[in-house]
């Protein structure tokens, strides 16, 4: 447990649809992710993947169970502390790349640091540029988000998610909107980052080929984990990157 970045104990999440009706989406999830693990989260739509990701990402509160981030129970934290914790330990990559359209690539990457510290400085800009260069988009630093291709935008989103050097990177179908070539590029990038920085990655995907390249595959059906297997490094599908 010492190395556990994330631990879920009997996590439940129910939504109130009408006043008397309560729909439970997650029925007691137990899950632990270690430092540097690269996991795929799979499951049919409606199985609760996104809900689970939102709970883990501290965007949504569970209705039952314990959630520990780096060994700390988050149940007792107030809204402000949760926001702070989220900003500092968790990075997000969303399906629809979700860059801020009014900002340049560099500004998007710097944004999490800017939000955390209130004002940008030289060091922040340098780090932003480094991150942008690490996703091979250095020359695009002053391009506005809508002026880049989908794959480029998603790579910026990965760079942005890494800005605060998070312990945990959550990706909700980051490649769902990309062609195979770009999807593999983004996947390879995350893989590389995880290896280089020891970042734990939880990747929601429908793509079997990408899942096969992960360390571990967790399958969710109807709000329950039905399979959780490690991929033997020998059998792991080779990267088909450029």
């Amino acid at each position, binding site marked *: 447990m010492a190395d556990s970045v994330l631990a879920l104990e009997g996590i439940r999440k129910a939504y109130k649809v009408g006043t008397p009706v309560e729909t439970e989406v997650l029925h007691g999830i137990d899950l632990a992710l270690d430092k540097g693990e690269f996991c795929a989260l799979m499951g049919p739509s409606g199985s609760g993947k996104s809900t689970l990701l939102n709970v883990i990402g501290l965007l949504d509160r569970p209705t039952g169970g314990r959630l520990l981030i780096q060994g700390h129970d988050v149940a007792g934290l107030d809204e*402000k502390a949760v926001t702070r914790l989220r900003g500092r330990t968790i990075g*997000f990559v969303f399906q629809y790349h979700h860059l801020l359209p*009014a900002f340049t690539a560099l500004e998007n990457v710097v944004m999490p640091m800017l*939000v955390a510290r209130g*004002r940008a400085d030289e060091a922040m800009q340098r780090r932003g540029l480094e991150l942008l260069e690490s996703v091979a988009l250095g020359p695009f630093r002053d391009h506005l988000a809508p002026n880049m291709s989908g794959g480029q935008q998603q790579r910026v989103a990965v760079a942005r998610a890494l800005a605060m050097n998070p312990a945990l990177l959550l990706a909700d179908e980051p490649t769902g909107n990309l062609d195979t070539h770009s999807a593999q590029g983004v996947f390879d990038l995350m893989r590389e980052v995880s290896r280089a920085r020891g970042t734990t990655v939880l990747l929601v995907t429908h793509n079997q080929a990408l899942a096969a390249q992960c360390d571990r595959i967790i399958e969710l059906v109807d709000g329950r984990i039905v399979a959780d297997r490690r991929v033997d490094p020998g059998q792991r599908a080779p990267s088909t990157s450029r």
Partner: protein
Amino acid sequence: MRSWLPFEWLAASRFLREGRLQSAAIVLGVSIGVGVIIFMSAALSGQQANIIRRVLGSQAHIVLLPPKEVARPLRGPEVAEAAIVQKPFQRVRSMDQWQKIIAEVAAMPGVVAVSPMASGPVLAVRGEATRAISVLGVDAERYFRIVPLPEKIVAGAPRLNAEDIVVGVDLATDLGVTVGDKLRVTTASGQAITLTITGTMDLGAKGINQRTTYVALHTAQALLGLVGGVSSIDVTVQDIYAAEDVARAIRAATGVEADSWIVTNAQFYVAINAQVVANTMIRFCVGLAIAFGIAAVLIVSVVQKSKEIGILRAMGASRAQILRVFLLQGAVLGLVGSLAGSAIGLIAIHAWNVLLKNPDGTPLFPLAMDARLFAAATLLATLTGLAAAVLPALRGARLDPVVAIRG
């Protein structure tokens, strides 16, 4: 590398720039509103100053008079009570202890100048022509601080020695006299003196110019049989709108009658007041329209930007930060709009001063370009923008990031 703004400023300015059509439209709306407010305020104060200058230019703010004479019927068991009590006539008579009253009033807060006057009705005789006039006996040095007579002199000089008289221009025409001529003045009781006209003056209205004459205080005292006495005391106050309060204080302290210009010109005062109230209402409503305009634009902006708000929240932006981003947008819209509005107001005031003339070609009345007015309008519009942004900003800050990102 260029310097970076704090997060809230950067986000607010980018959001405003992103919705530039919305921003431009509301800035235009705010600027028109602010321009109207500035112009109306300037017009109101200019018009008031103009009218007050005309009305109060030749009269005192407060006039002190001796208490009215009343008939006091004897009452008691042994006296038969008359059914009808005839009102007594009001003689020209002196105020008791007027020297003491002047000293007392002059020491009161808010009082600028005090001047005694001995006045009464007389006849001006010049050959066959006779005119009924009022003769106002004043102490020139003190009285000129109440009514700036030297400014109203048309010919001659405002000199008031023992045998001098200053007359209105219309009286001079009626009697066919000019500066240097002699004028015989007779009272009803037969007292008469001959005075030299040292100046003619224009007090702004024909009726007044036909009747009013000024002489030295002791000349009038001798003529009217008020030796050593005065018939009224004129008072000028600092704040003309506080005249009635000062008059009340004088009444309480001295027991004499004190009529402020507010009471003697009641209708005029009511008209000014009504104008102020109507103006304030209009300005308030324009301000309200500005506020709702800004609020509407920001509410739409919050809805449009809900995804971005969600992303910012997911990457660790606090509710307070989101709140400030939108408050700032409101304040910036108010500020920029009011700066443009100040320019519009400035142009409108300038146009008024240049284009609107009296029939004789003189400016109608000039509107002052008071820097304080512009500063106040700018500050107020900025605060209005800030206040209008509160509701949209709260909405943005309360947005659930999960819903915002999904939507």
